[in-house]
C-alpha cells in the first residue's frame, strides 16, 4: 500500500480546519495527481497500475471531501473523534424545521407556477443563502472547538444535510422540466 497514512488535510499540506483555501487545494491536488495518476503508468507493470489507481482514487476522494463543505464538516468531526452515527440527526431548532416545511411546500408547488423556471431560481437562491448562513455558523463552531461547540456543529451538519437533499430535489425537478421541453 502507498504511504497515505496522512489525513486529507496533511495530504494537501493544508492546516486542519473548516476554512480551506480552495485555490491552494486545487493546486496541491493537481501536483499530486501529476505524480500518481494512472496516465503516468499506462504502460507500466500491473503492480504499478494498481498502486497508481489506488493512490489516484484516494486523492480524488480526499479532494471531494475537502471541496464540499458538508463532507468537509463531517470529516472534521470524525477527525475530532465525534461519532456521527451515534446520535442520529437531531434538530432541536423549531424555526429551522418550520422553514424547511415551507421550502418543501414551495417545491411541491413549482410545477403549477406560471414560470416554473423562475420559481426554481427563486427557491435555489433561498436555499443558497440559507446554506451560506449555516456555513458561517459551522465555521465559527469549529473555530471555537470546545466540546459544546462541536456538539452544535453536529446539529449544523444535520441542517446542512436537509438543505443539500432539498437542493438535489430541486435539481431533479429542473431536469424533469428540461426533459419535457
Amino acid at each position, binding site marked *: 500500500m502507498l504511504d497515505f497514512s496522512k489525513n486529507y488535510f496533511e495530504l494537501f499540506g493544508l492546516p486542519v480546519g473548516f476554512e480551506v483555501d480552495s485555490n491552494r487545494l486545487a493546486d496541491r491536488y493537481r501536483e499530486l495527481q501529476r505524480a*500518481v495518476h494512472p496516465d503516468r503508468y499506462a504502460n507500466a507493470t500491473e503492480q504499478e497500475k494498481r498502486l497508481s489507481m489506488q493512490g489516484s482514487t484516494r486523492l480524488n476522494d480526499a479532494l471531494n471531501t475537502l471541496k464540499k463543505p458538508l463532507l468537509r464538516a463531517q470529516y472534521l468531526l470524525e477527525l475530532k473523534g465525534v461519532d456521527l452515527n451515534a446520535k442520529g440527526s437531531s434538530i432541536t431548532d423549531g424555526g429551522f424545521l418550520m422553514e424547511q416545511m415551507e421550502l418543501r411546500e414551495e417545491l411541491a408547488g413549482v410545477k403549477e407556477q406560471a414560470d416554473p423556471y423562475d420559481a426554481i431560481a427563486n427557491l435555489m437562491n433561498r436555499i443558497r443563502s440559507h446554506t451560506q448562513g449555516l456555513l458561517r455558523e459551522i465555521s465559527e463552531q469549529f473555530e471555537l472547538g470546545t466540546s459544546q461547540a462541536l456538539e452544535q456543529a453536529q446539529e449544523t451538519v444535520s441542517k446542512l444535510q436537509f438543505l443539500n437533499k432539498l437542493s438535489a430535489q430541486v435539481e431533479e425537478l429542473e431536469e424533469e422540466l428540461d426533459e419535457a421541453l
Partner: protein
Amino acid sequence: MALLQLSEPGQSLAPHQHKLAAGIDLGTTNSLVATVRSGQAETLPDEQARHLLPSIVRYLDEQIEVGYEALSAATTDPLNTIASVKRLMGRSVEDIKTLGDRLPYEFQQQDSVVPRIHTVGGAVSPVEVSAEILKVLAARAEASLDSELNGVVITVPAYFDDAQRQATKDAAQLAGLNVLRLLNEPTAAAVAYGLDQGQDGIHAIYDLGGGTFDISILRLNQGVFEVLSTGGDSALGGDDFDRIVAGWIMQQAGIKDDAGHAMLRRLMRDACAAKEALTDAETAQLDIELEDGSHWQGELDRATFNQLVEPLIRKTLAPCRRALRDAGLTADEIDDVVMVGGSTRVPYVREKMGEFFGTPPLVNIDPDKVVALGAAIQADILIGNKPEDEMLLLDVNPLSLGIETMGGLVEKIIPRNTTIPVARAQEFTTFKDGQTAMAIHVLQGERELVTDCRSLARFELREIPAMVAGAAHILVTFEVDADGLLHVTAKEQSSGVETSVEVKPSYGLTDSEIEGMLRASMAHAQEDMDARRLREQQVEAKRVIEALASALAADGEQLLTKEEQEPIKKSFQHLVALSESDDYEAIKEAIEALEKSCEFYVERRMNANIHKAMAGQKVDNFND
C-alpha cells in the same frame, strides 16, 4: 544503466527510446488513426491518400473487406455488409429491438445475450466487426511508420455506458492491440484544441457524430484538463438526420414502408448525400432509383431540411442544460464551444448552438479529425514518449452507478460526473434470519426505478455465515478505473469470512466467447493460439524489462541498497535470458518472479514521487 549493467551490448534499452503509439477514433460512420510524428499529431492516410476509413465491414465466403471496398457493396450486398456497428456495441438483442432502428441485417436467434449478425462468412458479433476495423487501422499505422505498434488509445463517446466501453476494449483485445486507455471523444477533442491554442478557461465540447451525441464541459488550467461534467445520448447522431430525410423522401416519392433492404440502403445513402450537399448549397437535387428501376426526382431545400432536423437538434439541448447544471455553471460562463463530429457541419446545428451558448462555435480543426488527433497526442504521452510533459486529463464517469435495493429501487453508489478513478463502498445487511446468500444487482442510470436503469450485472454473494437478520455487514465496493470501467466486489466482514466477486457486464462477452472468437480469427490468419500467447508474453517481457531498466537507471541507486539490488538483478537477468525463448509458460513465470522481487521497489518509487510532489508544495509555501 551503468548501475546494473543490465543490457547486452547492442540491445536497445535506452530509457526514452521512441515508441510507436497511435490514437484511434473508432467512429460510427468513419474511423481514423493518427500518431505524433516529430512533435506534430497527424492522421494517417491509406495508400490512396484517403484519411477516413468508412466503418463498414463486408463478409464474403473466404474474405473480409473493410472500408471503401465494403462501402461500395453496401447497397448491392446489404445483408453481408455491416455499417454503423458502433450503435450495436455492448447492446443485447433486446436492446437492439428497442433502439427502434430498421436495421438492414438478419440477426441470428441464439442463446447468448450478445447479438450476432448472420452473414455468408458466418455469424458475427459487433465486437468482431469492430475488431476488423481496428486491425485495418493498426496495420495502416504500422505500414506507414514501418514500425511495430506499441500501444493505442481508442476513443469512445463520453456517454458510453460500461457495457459499451467493455465491448470496445474486447474488440481491441480481439484485434491484438495493447490498449493504453479508452479516452472520451470530447476530451480528446479538447486536448487537440487546448494544445493548439493553449488557452486556459472553460470550454464546452459539442460532439455530434454519426450515431452518438456528447456534451462535455471542461476546464483547462495549466496543462490540466479537468472534465467538470458530461452528458449526451449514445443513440443520437447523423444517422438519425439521414433517417429523417429518408423518411421524408419516402413520403414524397410514395415509397412504401416495406421496401427491401437494398432500397432502404440506397435511400439512406441518398439522404446522407442530400444532407451533405445542403452544408454549402441552398437546395439539394434528388434522383432516387426505385425498386422497379424507374426514377423519382425531387428537391430538398435548406429550410425544409432545417425543419425536419429541428427536433433532433432540440433533443441535444436537454443534455447541454444538464451538463451545465452539473458543472454548476450557466451558459454565459462558457468561454468557447468546440464543434466536433461530422454532423456539426450542418449549418443549422452551428447556428442553434451559437445561440444557446451565446458565442460563435469554434470550427478551426476539421471536426472529422480532431478526436483522432487528440487521441494521438494522449497516446504519445501514455506510451512514455514525453516523460516531462505536464499534461494531465481528469475525466469523469458519465452515468450514475448503483445497486438494487428493496422495492425495485436503485441506490446510487457513485453519482454521475464523479472524477475517476474512484472507489465507493456501501454497507448492506441481510433481512432474514439465517440468510446465507444475497443477490446483488448492479445498475447504471439516473432514474429511481430499477426498470428504468440499465442492468449491468447480477451476482450472488454466497456462504454468508447464518446470523440473525441485520447482523451481517456486507460491504459492496464499486471501483471505476481510468478507462471508465466498473469493477464490483462484495464481502461479508463481520465474521471475518470474506467472499468477493468480480463482475463483468452481463451484456459483455464472456472470456470463453472471446477465446472462441480468437480461435476463429486465428483459423483465418493461419496462426494458432499458442503462437499468439507466446508473442504476447514476449512483448510483455520486453515491456517489463524496459520499464524496469529505465526505473533503475533513474533512481535505482538512490532507492535501493546493494543488497536489495541483488535479487532484483538476478530475476531481471533470468527474464532477459528467457525473453526470446519459445516457452511462454517459462516467460510468464519469469515475469511474475521479477515483478514479485521488485514489489517493494515499485512501492518505494511511487512513494518517492508522492513525497517529491509534496515537497514541491512546501517549497512554494515559503514563496507565498
